[in-house]
């Protein structure tokens, strides 16, 4: 059976969620593998969310926020960026491919970019194959 990636996306309310919404209302065609979790700001996204997503079976995790300088709360997206970069280093140490975690800035008007992002990320994850975290972490051997 062909592998169908499960992707969790954390989208910030003000920019990236609106952008994703725009992709939908504009009837853009894009892959349906993404499940969206809306947060008020990408600065709300913390490592625990992402690690839990992998532990519960996500094959890839996407985080989107406002472009630098445009954050509704001034600097939330910068905090997100810093955490994201450190987290990527950590997951690489844990044997999780760093490509499974992606951060991209999506503004409220960037519906097309969101659709393209989803498509290309889903493709990347398809090529990587299923993420083994859920299987290996939830049983003690």
């Amino acid at each position, binding site marked *: 059976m062909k592998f169908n990636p499960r992707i969790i996306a954390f989208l910030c309310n003000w920019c990236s969620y609106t952008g994703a919404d725009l992709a939908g209302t504009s009837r853009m065609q894009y892959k349906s593998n993404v499940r969206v979790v809306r947060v008020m700001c990408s600065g709300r996204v*913390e*490592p*625990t969310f992402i*690690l*839990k997503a*992998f*532990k519960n079976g996500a094959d890839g995790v996407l985080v989107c926020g406002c472009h*630098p300088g445009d954050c509704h709360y001034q600097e939330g997206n*910068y*905090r997100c*960026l*810093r*955490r994201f*970069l*450190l*987290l990527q*280093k*950590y*997951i690489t*140490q*844990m*044997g*999780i491919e760093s490509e499974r975690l992606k951060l991209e800035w999506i503004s409220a008007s960037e519906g097309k970019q969101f659709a393209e992002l989803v498509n290309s990320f889903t493709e990347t994850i398809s090529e990587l194959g299923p993420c*083994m*975290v859920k299987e*290996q*972490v939830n049983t*003690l*051997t």
Partner: protein
Amino acid sequence: MYTEESKPKLKLAVYWAAACGGCCVSVLDVHEKLFDVISAADLVFWPIALDTKYKDVEEMPDNYIDLTLFNGAVRNSENEHMAKLLRKKSRILVAYGSCAHMGGIPGLANFSTKEEVLYRIFEETESVVNPEKVRPLPECDVPEGKLELPFFYNDVRSLSQVVETDYFIPGCPPQTERLLEVFIAIVSGAKLPPPGSVIGAGTRSQCDECVRIKTENKRIRKFYRPWEIIDDGITCFMEQGVLCMGPATRSGCGYRCIKGNAPCRGCYGPPEDLNDPGAKMMSAVASIIDEEDPEEIMKIIEDVVDPAGLFYRFSLPVSLIRRKIS
């Protein structure tokens, strides 16, 4: 402290699994107060010091032991067997010390598979000479008969990953004064916190107790390895750019490593029951980086040379990603 007419002595057991002996030393470090401990408690099982056999424990009625301090991680079949046995025979089972609480230092073995560990130790080390690739076996035949060893697991486990655990006393090893406080509380019949609680430790972070000087200046432009700076002995390590797990570590040890001019490495575990013992610290460390350009941030992060080994030094087996994915 305890009179002849007081209630029957507390039956106390101390057992070590995949341990180093430091927790047993911490019990003995009561020094002169040992006599008070002995007058209040009957040591019924302590393989290091007493001759109670595993068979004797098996013959005990359930809940016979009032209090068991179980230290060490669960690394092999013998450790697991004893954890389950002592759960049955103990009224209160305490995960004593970092290894039983969170996996501890032996938990770092979760960065490797069982095969990788055995290969390194028995075939690859610089001094080993083993052309026939002999490995220790759970069962092997020798000319005189059969010999057995415990089965070595792939995953290191904390005590509560194997049996239901009543309380956790953190620390590597727990500071003896904290143990005495718990012991006195139990013996004097004080009401204990709800099962599953961490006891014998503070509720806030190390920073609360630490006497190093902290300012509002928590913006880092570079992280330093401890040997890259001359520590002034007075200022908070984080403010000197040296990573210290203090902000994410429960108090109770008396900031003993800081007293030795070394940054905290988190042996007391997180200040509250969190989903993951290291993630909050990762988040905090990243947040104080004083840079907005991704490339510059990456340069700063490069100096966090071993995130997994630092943020999860004592707690890898109980973290969300509790082992390296192979």
